[in-house]
């Protein structure tokens, strides 16, 4: 793995204006606020958070599919480098073939009226990546085989397939243009556990084989723990903690990360009631609390947390945390 970032964002903010009243400032949803992060080439980068934390919007911004209000996104794959805030139409077309998205729901993502072959071939045709039908077919068959699809099934329609097979079709379509960067947004959330394991294994093996960089968006920390090498935790549009996966799970520093980890239902029936419970719900992004965005639910919040917003700061090699009290909490607190 090279250490150069493929994607690097600085102070990235995505705000959506809301219809407001006649007087006063228009309300805005601050979906993503001042996010600075580097995604290393060839890494499997996890992004976790509850619904409403802004993780999907962040993923879309990296694909230039959400409006960038402030800040910058730089992309550099060694062949080309783009500044996504100033990219022109011609470059954007090229970027589209280099950055792809895999959706959550394989039942909604595939057109029921196209054959599997046409679904997978569509990006090649839209982007003009292949010249002849033979060339297209060859590419489709190659990627379908990589995604462990039965080549005889290419002439069928999506309704004939199960959820796991459909998700493999979605993956094949995302990868057919030979992208460098793939955003997988809750790509296994709709699958049964026995199938989920299969799709995760497939994503990992393809990532390693093709040297891809993944942004893996998920609400499921145990899935992220297994597949990602780096994890960022988001809350109300902000990054609250980023670290290599092992480090994050062994020594979580932010109270939110700790709470998320302890909320995962344990498979041990004797561990009942030991979890550290988080009160309340995520506040509305139109009216976030002042100071640290987590202060309304944080059991350790003190005055400064309600006034000043903590910056993401280094707490060791590659481990960053945005909490005023992480140092004292790390010293005094028992692990979650």
């Amino acid at each position, binding site marked *: 793995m090279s250490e150069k970032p493929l994607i690097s964002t600085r102070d990235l903010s995505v705000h959506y204006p809301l219809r407001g009243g006649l007087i006063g400032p228009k309300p805005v949803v601050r979906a993503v606020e001042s996010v600075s992060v580097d995604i290393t080439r060839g890494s499997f980068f996890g992004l976790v958070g509850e619904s409403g934390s802004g993780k999907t919007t962040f993923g879309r911004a990296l694909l230039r599919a959400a409006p960038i209000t402030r800040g910058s996104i730089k992309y550099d794959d060694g062949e080309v480098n783009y500044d996504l805030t100033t990219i022109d139409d011609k470059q954007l077309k090229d970027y589209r073939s280099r950055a792809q998205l895999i959706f959550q729901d394989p039942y909604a993502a595939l057109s029921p009226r196209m054959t599997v072959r046409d679904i997978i071939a569509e990006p090649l045709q839209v982007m003009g990546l292949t010249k002849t039908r033979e060339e297209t077919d060859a590419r489709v068959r190659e990627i379908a085989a990589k995604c462990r699809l039965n080549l005889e099934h290419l002439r069928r329609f999506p309704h004939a397939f*199960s959820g796991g097979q459909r998700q493999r079709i979605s993956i094949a379509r995302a990868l057919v243009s030979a992208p460098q960067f793939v955003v997988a947004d809750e790509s296994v959330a709709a699958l049964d556990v*026995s*199938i989920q394991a299969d799709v995760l294994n497939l994503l990992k093996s393809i990532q390693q084989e093709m040297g891809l960089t993944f942004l893996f968006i998920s609400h*499921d920390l145990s899935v992220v723990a297994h597949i990602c090498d780096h994890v960022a935790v988001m809350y109300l549009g902000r990054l609250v903690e980023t670290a290599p*996966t092992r480090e994050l799970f062994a020594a979580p520093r932010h109270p939110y990360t700790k709470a998320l980890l302890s909320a995962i239902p344990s498979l041990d029936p004797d561990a009942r009631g030991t979890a550290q419970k988080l009160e309340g719900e995520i506040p509305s992004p139109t009216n976030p609390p002042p100071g640290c965005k987590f202060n309304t639910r944080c059991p350790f919040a003190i005055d400064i947390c309600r006034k000043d917003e903590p910056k993401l700061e280094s707490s060791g090699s590659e481990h960053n945390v945005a909490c005023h009290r992480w140092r004292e909490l790390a010293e005094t607190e028992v692990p979650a």
Partner: protein
Amino acid sequence: MTSLLNVENLTLQFDTDEGRITAVDDVSFSLKQGEVMGLVGESGSGKSVTAKALMKLNPGNAHYSDSTKITLHLADWAVDIMSLKSSRDMQVVRGGAISMIFQEPMASFAPAISIGDQMVEQLLIHTDMTKKRAREVSIEMLDRVGISDASKRFKQFAFELSGGMRQRAMIAMALSTKPKLLIADEPTTALDVTIQAQVIDLMKDLVDDFGMGIIFITHDLGVIAQTADNVAVMYLGRIVEQGPVREVIRTPAHPYTQGLLAALPDLEDMDSPLVPIPGDIPSPLERPPGCVFHTRCSVAIAGKCNTEIPEFVQIDANHRAACHLATKGGRAS
């Protein structure tokens, strides 16, 4: 503890355009008062259909076999559910003795009627409360499930509440008639983990307070481990393994249960590879003969598992598995 519910030989088929399909096949279980039973399985395993059968809520193309017998034991009356014909007779059971909460609280509340009016309506149907009393009881229930400012929420509509709040309101509504049996169909699946933990805690409190039996349907074995006393694992309409939750999770006897557990990402051991169960759940139109799981089973014996339907083997006092390879006190592997 006294027996609350007995289900014997429940077999349920649906007429579809492609033919008659079997959704539930010879399912038997029982539930005591105050017991939480987990019903686990993947999509298509028949767990929701089984639960709905307890209230005969399945659509008109459903056929129950003659051998099906469902008995609900109320204080002074053993209700034979299958013999209830008119929807008037069913009212005693539906929403009265049995309540159900669903996965999607947004889809379960009427969008144009306030939460409060919906709660009052069912109390007027199922109890002899006055409207004023029904109102008081509803607000008390909303308060009890941890909704702050209950009298204000009472007047609000479902869209005005957050997901976690809606599920709490749904639980309040389901419990306000003081049912003997609560069926919870994936009640936490649509919620974030932190909210899920809150709802699970709430449900455990309520069981202690009200002492009703709960059938908790989920695909998440972690949720089962945290809530249930006993668990039944379903696959393609059959119960393949059932028993006390500790035994089933720690020493699973059926290869399907073992496979489900192996496929789960484990936070304690991040290095162990995820092991999927090979293949997909077959279409109900192509139900495999013999053991329904043999097409995906890594230890299936040709000539036996694909022809003979396995009987239940008693693993331990209350733990049993339907597998040709399961042995008393041991496990198939």
